[in-house]
């Protein structure tokens, strides 16, 4: 393929994709030009697929066909729109109206009333987009989208990820052409340095520097690698990018290959992400077919290709040296650095490894310039960051905001706050390596340094919100259980330290802890931080230390009063039947899995505390609120 052919495809598909960006009358005019009166976008990301978007898509296509509308209405299966809690999601252009929690039955109505007769089914729309007077608010004006700035996610939920032409229509592969024809390798490195882009995998190392080291490393054979082993539970931004815009990663890796002098790339992706793997395979196939991968790319004489390698469920493989050991076919254990991967990486050769989200920014920085990117964000952290909002928050989903946005803006405005009138307790960032941030720090502007200063870290971007019903000691124990499972066992401080820390927490949650244990926890944590081999062990104590710092009262309450304030820690709970309220219906006794409840019909029942396993089944079954948890 030549650049002229690339541009031809871009121009041909330009209007079709643009309809999805401009709405109302202007969009309608453009839509007429494209031959499709309407376009219906259905989310095909993992979240929406899990809530049934496939059935919605099938119903939509068959109904359109039945009504004879399939030639004038284009159905596009896109990647993630971000608002996963409202899935399956469907958007109709040129109106730009947003149908939430779509069902096959609802879709039949939409085709009949809206697509055929022009009457939008307002009762099926996302309620935030419908005003009281019946007028419809564009999606971009809703609280969820208004404060977002989508750069890494720019094509997610907009284009069909399985159609390379739609990526090309959004200036796709133009940055690659620019790098091959107008820029020297040093120009590319300088551009990234000037942009201030830092690694989005968690550590925040300046990307330009990484590229500079890999470029400067001596060697004939070099590799480019992409870390798509998104192991932080609760983080799904990399998956969404791979599912929604796989070519953005492929283009950036090819640019990286040309810049550092590599001809081969590897994408290491979690096996738990089958949809992402499938879309990547399709995208790689199309890029090869177009000659955007393979020999003599765009007539430049540069050769590059990419291979997918699947992970097999080991969190530690998200660590760069462990990831490379795993690609090499071994147990995914980390190795000491130096030598750094830029000097001695995959198969002993200089290797440039970046995270998916980092790559997703590269092509746009090259096209729009370093100054454009550096104009967003804070003094030390430029651009935007994608966060996966999860836990006790109304708008669970994926958001992208400029660095420097505060946690409060993300949680209360974009996220829509805590559901069910509960009180915010903490926000957890950085996953098993990060910490819990309490209410008093909600106004912290998010960047790498400020999150570190309050005892957490940016991490890959998981942001889990917890409310008053979550016990912070239990949460710390949850993370330690995770790191105990996932520690590879190579170095002692991590292998034994995580286990010992976890035992202290178990002791406390069982009401057997002592105040002395709290001191020992801190001492052990500091040893682990200073002497573990890789970031997994070095950061494993963070969830404990941050909760101990901000929620020490809760720890003390568990230790001194044998009481779990949130009512989570089972050993410290008991269920009791209030005799006055019990009608003797026997429902609890019949449902108790361990036969711990005794009593006769129409007489108050009693729970045998020695037998009770505190499962709470009795309480949820009781129709008279006669059972209490203490």
């Amino acid at each position, binding site marked *: 393929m030549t650049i002229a052919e690339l541009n031809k495809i871009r121009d041909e598909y330009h209007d079709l994709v643009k309809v999805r960006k401009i709405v109302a009358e202007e969009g309608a005019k453009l839509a007429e030009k494209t031959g499709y009166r309407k376009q219906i976008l259905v989310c095909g990301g993992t979240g929406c697929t899990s809530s049934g978007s496939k059935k919605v898509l099938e119903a939509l296509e068959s109904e359109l066909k039945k009504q004879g509308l399939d030639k004038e209405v284009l159905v596009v299966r896109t990647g993630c729109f971000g608002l996963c809690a409202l899935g399956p999601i469907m958007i109709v252009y040129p109106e730009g109206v947003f149908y939430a929690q779509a069902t096959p039955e609802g879709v039949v109505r939409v085709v009949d009333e809206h697509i055929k007769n022009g009457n939008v089914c307002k009762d099926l729309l996302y309620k935030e987009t419908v005003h009281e007077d019946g007028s419809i608010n564009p999606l971009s004006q809703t609280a969820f989208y208004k404060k977002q700035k989508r750069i890494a996610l720019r094509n997610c939920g907009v284009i069909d990820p399985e159609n390379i032409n739609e990526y090309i229509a959004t200036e796709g592969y133009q940055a690659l052409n620019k790098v091959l024809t107008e820029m020297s390798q040093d120009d590319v490195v300088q551009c990234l340095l000037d942009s201030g882009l830092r690694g989005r995998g968690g550590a925040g190392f300046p990307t330009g520097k990484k590229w500079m080291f890999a470029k400067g490393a001596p060697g004939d054979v070099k590799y480019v690698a992409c870390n798509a082993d998104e192991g932080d539970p609760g983080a799904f931004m990399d998956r969404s990018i791979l599912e929604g815009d796989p070519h953005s990663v492929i283009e950036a890796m090819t640019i990286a290959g040309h810049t550092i002098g590599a001809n081969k790339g590897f994408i290491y992706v979690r096996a738990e992400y089958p949809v992402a793997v499938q879309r990547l395979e399709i995208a790689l196939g199309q890029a090869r077919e177009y000659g955007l991968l393979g020999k003599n790319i765009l007539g430049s004489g540069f050769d590059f290709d990419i291979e997918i390698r699947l992970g097999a469920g080991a969190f530690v493989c998200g660590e760069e040296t462990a990831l490379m050991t795993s690609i090499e076919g071994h147990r995914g254990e980390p190795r000491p650095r130096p030598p750094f991967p830029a000097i001695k990486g995959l198969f002993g050769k200089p290797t440039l490894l970046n995270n998916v989200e980092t790559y997703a920014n590269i092509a746009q920085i090259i096209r729009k310039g370093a100054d454009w990117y550096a104009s967003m964000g804070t003094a030390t952290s430029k651009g935007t960051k994608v966060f996966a909002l999860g836990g006790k928050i109304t708008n*669970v989903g994926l958001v992208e905001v400029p660095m420097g946005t505060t946690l409060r803006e993300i949680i209360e405005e974009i996220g829509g706050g805590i559901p069910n009138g509960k009180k915010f307790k903490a926000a957890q960032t950085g996953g098993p390596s990060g910490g819990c941030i309490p209410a008093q720090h909600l106004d912290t502007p998010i960047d790498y340094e400020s999150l570190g200063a309050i005892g957490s870290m940016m991490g890959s971007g998981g942001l889990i919100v917890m409310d008053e019903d979550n016990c912070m000691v239990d949460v710390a124990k949850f993370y330690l259980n995770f790191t105990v499972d996932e520690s590879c066992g190579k170095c002692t401080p991590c292998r034994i330290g995580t286990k010992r820390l976890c035992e202290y927490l178990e002791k406390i949650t069982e009401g057997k802890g002592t105040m002395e244990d709290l001191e020992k926890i801190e001492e052990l944590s500091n040893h682990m931080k200073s002497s573990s081999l890789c970031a997994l062990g070095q950061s494993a104590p963070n969830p404990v230390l941050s909760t101990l710092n901000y929620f020490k009262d809760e720890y003390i309450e568990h230790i001194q009063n044998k009481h779990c304030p949130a009512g989570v820690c089972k050993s410290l709970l008991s269920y009791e039947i209030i005799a006055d309220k019990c009608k003797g219906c026997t429902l609890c006794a019949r449902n108790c899995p361990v036969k711990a409840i005794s009593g006769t019909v129409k007489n108050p029942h009693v729970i045998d505390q020695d037998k009770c396993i505190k499962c709470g089944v009795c309480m949820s079954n009781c129709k008279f609120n006669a059972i209490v948890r203490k």
Partner: protein
Amino acid sequence: MNEKNLIPFNGTEVQEKELMEVIAAHRDQDGGLMPILQKAQGIYGYLPIEVQTMIADGLGISLSEVYGVATFYSQFSLTPKGEHRISVCLGTACYVKGSDKILEAVESKLGIKSGECTPDGKFSIDSCRCVGACGLAPVMLVDEDVYGKLTPDQVDGILKSYLDK
């Protein structure tokens, strides 16, 4: 020794032929052991010692090396799984929304623990760390089907729907 490990290996010739083709295809690839193990598990459903031995012989490496890799990654299983594989997500987003109670409900319903298989071979339970469907937390997978926004009382009905499948 655990009784479950005593289930005799009954691989077929067709499976073995398929495995040999996989080994041949990846033999000369750098780091080919992982893709071979992944495909072997796809063929046999698990990686018993017999299969590991065939892979070691086929690649000309030691059995201990194959075993070392097979036991390092949680995706690989050395014991057979149930006809229907249940996987309860214990990722953070699911955990803070009570997925531990979902797992308890599944365990008590089937009378086995996570990591085990029912004696009739119908169901096995595992926990996993995040399938990325955090918007639907808490989440459970049965085979390829995702069940989201679960409560413990829904578990019984879901399991029953698989009994006749």
